[in-house]
């Protein structure tokens, strides 16, 4: 046996036991990581066009509220998520529209339109937004979010593009 590496029976058993143990651990451990992080890897962000009302019924100049609910399946349960916002037609032109989300950019409370004050007010921390969504007063870090993509279909319905997640 000179010149060849000699492995004792004891060392062979140690190495073999370690190797088999390692393989078993990896065979269970690697899939388990996938199993645990799976919900984070699921492709979210469903997209849809949502009708918010007939354009002819929305007055020019006054913010008009709209709301809708989307249902999502989370594992074994369905969860409804409510969305709301305001359509502001600046003129009779069907492309001259601002569509704001009613979710305050501070801590996600729902804002309300105050006709007499001509501004949006958040009930939670008295945030004030102008008619086009700019921050006038209060803690919000940025203007109200806008649904920038919208269209009017052949029947005169105003649709907004929603991307979830």
């Amino acid at each position: 046996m000179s010149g060849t590496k000699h492995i004792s029976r004891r060392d062979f058993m140690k190495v073999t036991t370690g190797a088999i143990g390692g393989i078993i651990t990896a065979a269970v451990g690697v899939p388990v990581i996938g199993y645990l992080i799976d919900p984070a890897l699921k492709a979210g962000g469903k997209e849809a066009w949502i009708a918010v009302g007939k354009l002819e019924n929305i007055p020019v100049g006054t913010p008009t509220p709209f709301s809708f609910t989307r249902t999502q399946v989370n594992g074994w349960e369905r969860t409804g998520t409510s969305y709301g916002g305001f359509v502001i037609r600046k003129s009779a032109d069907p492309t001259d529209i601002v569509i704001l989300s009613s979710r305050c950019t501070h801590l996600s409370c729902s804002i309300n339109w105050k006709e007499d004050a001509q501004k949006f007010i958040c009930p939670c921390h008295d945030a004030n937004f102008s008619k086009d969504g700019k921050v006038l007063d209060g803690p919000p870090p940025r203007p109200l979010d806008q649904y920038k993509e919208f269209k009017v279909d052949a029947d005169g319905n105003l649709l907004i593009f929603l991307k979830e997640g």
Partner: protein
Amino acid sequence: MWQKIYQWLDERLGMGEMYSNLLDRPEPTGNWWNTLGSASLFLFILQGATGIFLTVYYTPSPDHAYDSIQYIMNGVAFGWLVRGIHHWGATLMVLVVFIHMLRVFVTASYKYPRELTWLIGVGLLVLTLGMGFTGYLLPWNQKAYWATTVATQIAGTVPWLGDFILKVLRGGPDLSALTLQRFFAAHIWILPAALVALIGVHLYLIIKHGESHFPVQED
């Protein structure tokens, strides 16, 4: 570098000493039948690990138990594998524990001074069967529901105390949400805690007494 870290740890933990006492202890002539206890321990750890991971998605409520398992099987990456290992591992564990008991009986390894090891082993066998019994209900499908109905009914035939035992097992006179919840609690907390404690004593006794020789002709 690693040598230094190892030495630092070894000086404080005594790992080398532990290794020689726990794993490098003298054994009678090697025999594959002597590995069944270790195999049972391995299966217990495997069941524990896969069971913990199953609770990440499983819900023990009649409304969602079945759906949550459908989700594990079809919705989660490798959910089928984790549940599959837990499902087949359970059957295998009962089998291996039982053969382990037969081996100890046939080789008369239960004799002095190892009677207590045997008695605790009986407890471990009963607890393992209890794990199988409580785990069987958790999928909350037809088979699980009726198997538990029948088995708790059998427990109810005990003279005098039967009705009381049945109500304790079911958490009331009928199989209900309470049954599922208490079987779940027994399956993931009560029985595993008892198993871990008894396994600890069982292993301590094995290390204390060493393993028995197989009997020879003169015995």
